[in-house]
């Protein structure tokens, strides 16, 4: 049961969709009851990992599914289509399945949605599939009444095979934490585009498929890669909290070692939002045995999507489930974000 366990309210509100403790409570107490058991050799619903894994012969079949409801549907650096494809390809990769077999894509369209917008998003989906060397093999189409949904909803499911599963729960004291690039780009880029904030910036989402990057790291690190997660909703903070809690270790992060774009830092300061809780859509967080850390870092840095990779933290036995930030001036506990990011004035 998760720390700070809470019970699901009478009405399901927005906070249940934001990836934090409330959502986990909902899954534990409602969705996972009596479902999702794949036996001992596999990863099922209760694990709440990036996807599921089912033993098939001498491999694992990995499945991941995601629904995408981002607004605005087109943003600097990408769109809902690219986000959908990358999201699922990356989820598969986070379990160790770095060569997707195929994807599905179901769309729910609001009555009145412009055909040309749909075509543009579909072209982005096609281009991203090509980039990721995969394709969409089946899907579904629905249209709902005007006002019954917000423009467009996409759902993607992906399947892949792998010999070795990488969980997000294999950390032990002494292991190193690595991030593959700058943190907080996507979430703050979306925040910055909100018209009413009137910020002029060149911030872009980092949305990208990172499966080949992960492949390279797994080839070099092998069994030394003990945890893997993509820091999407809730940013690096959420990812590390989950890893720490599931593994039963504490994590100390050297804040000065975390790569940040200057503009991300600036927008974060202006709006009072911490880049470490802001989403990333083209990054991964690795847990590594110390003996493979340097080699994996080099391998990732040799990849175009991993140039700014850095080792940012270490696992300890103390304070299991907690993430401590060494700020360079002192230290603090990194809090888990709850709810959507809101600009702060105080």
């Amino acid at each position, binding site marked *: 049961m998760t720390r700070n366990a809470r019970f699901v309210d009478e009405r399901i509100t927005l906070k249940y969709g934001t990836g934090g403790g409330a959502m986990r409570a909902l899954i534990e107490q409602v969705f996972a009851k009596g479902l999702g058991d794949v036996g001992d050799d596999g990863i099922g619903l209760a694990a709440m990992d990036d996807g599921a894994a089912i033993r098939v012969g001498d491999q694992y079949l990995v499945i991941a599914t995601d629904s995408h409801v981002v607004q605005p549907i087109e943003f600097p650096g990408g769109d809902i289509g690219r986000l959908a494809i990358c999201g699922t390809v990356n989820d598969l990769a986070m379990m160790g399945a770095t060569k997707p077999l195929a994807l599905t894509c179901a769309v729910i369209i609001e009555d009145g949605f412009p055909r040309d917008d749909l075509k543009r998003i579909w072209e982005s989906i096609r281009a991203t599939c090509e980039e990721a060397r995969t394709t969409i093999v089946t899907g579904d189409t629905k249209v709902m009444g005007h006002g019954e949904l917000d423009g467009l909803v996409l759902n993607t499911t992906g399947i892949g095979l792998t010999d070795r599963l990488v969980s997000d729960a294999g950390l032990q004291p002494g292991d190193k934490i690595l991030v*593959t*690039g*700058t943190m907080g*780009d996507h979430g703050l880029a979306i925040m*910055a585009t909100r018209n009413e904030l*009137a*910020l*002029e*910036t060149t*911030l872009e989402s*980092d949305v*990208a498929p990172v499966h080949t990057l992960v492949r390279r790291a797994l080839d070099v690190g092998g069994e030394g890669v003990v945890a893997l997660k993509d820091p999407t909703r809730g940013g690096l903070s959420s990812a590390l909290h989950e890893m720490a809690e599931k593994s039963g270790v504490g994590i100390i992060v050297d804040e*000065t*070692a975390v*790569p*940040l*774009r*200057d*503009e991300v*830092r*600036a*927008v974060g*300061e*202006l709006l*009072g939002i911490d880049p470490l809780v802001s989403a990333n859509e*083209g*990054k991964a967080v690795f847990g590594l045995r110390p003996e493979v850390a340097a080699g994996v870092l080099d391998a990732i840095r040799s990849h*175009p*999507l*991993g*140039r*700014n990779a*850095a080792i940012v933290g270490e696992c300890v036995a103390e304070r299991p489930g907690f993430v401590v930030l060494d700020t360079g001036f002192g230290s603090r506990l990194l809090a888990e974000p709850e709810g959507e990011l809101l600009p*702060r*004035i*105080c």
Partner: protein
Amino acid sequence: MCLGVPGKVIEVDREMQIATVDFWGVKKQVRLEVCDAPVDPGDYILNHVGFAIRRIPPEEAAETLALYDELLRLADDQDLMTADVRAEIDAAPDATRSPKGAPDGSQ
């Protein structure tokens, strides 16, 4: 109180009393009507909820550092630790440079 962020004035529209201000690479428009002094491009202002509440005189940055250094020396002069720190500060050419510098264009 509350989120006041310093930024550098890039452009001033005196008639509309609005300035375009650069905050470490991010630009935003800021209103000038409650600022305590007229501002020109190149000046630093303190922004609070979209209003400039103070023109920060350029010499103040150096004076603030001088204040800190003076406070550092409030301690006993014979204390060796202070001397070490002072030496460290004087020796470091650019003690605040972020170790990673600016990330390159790719991720």
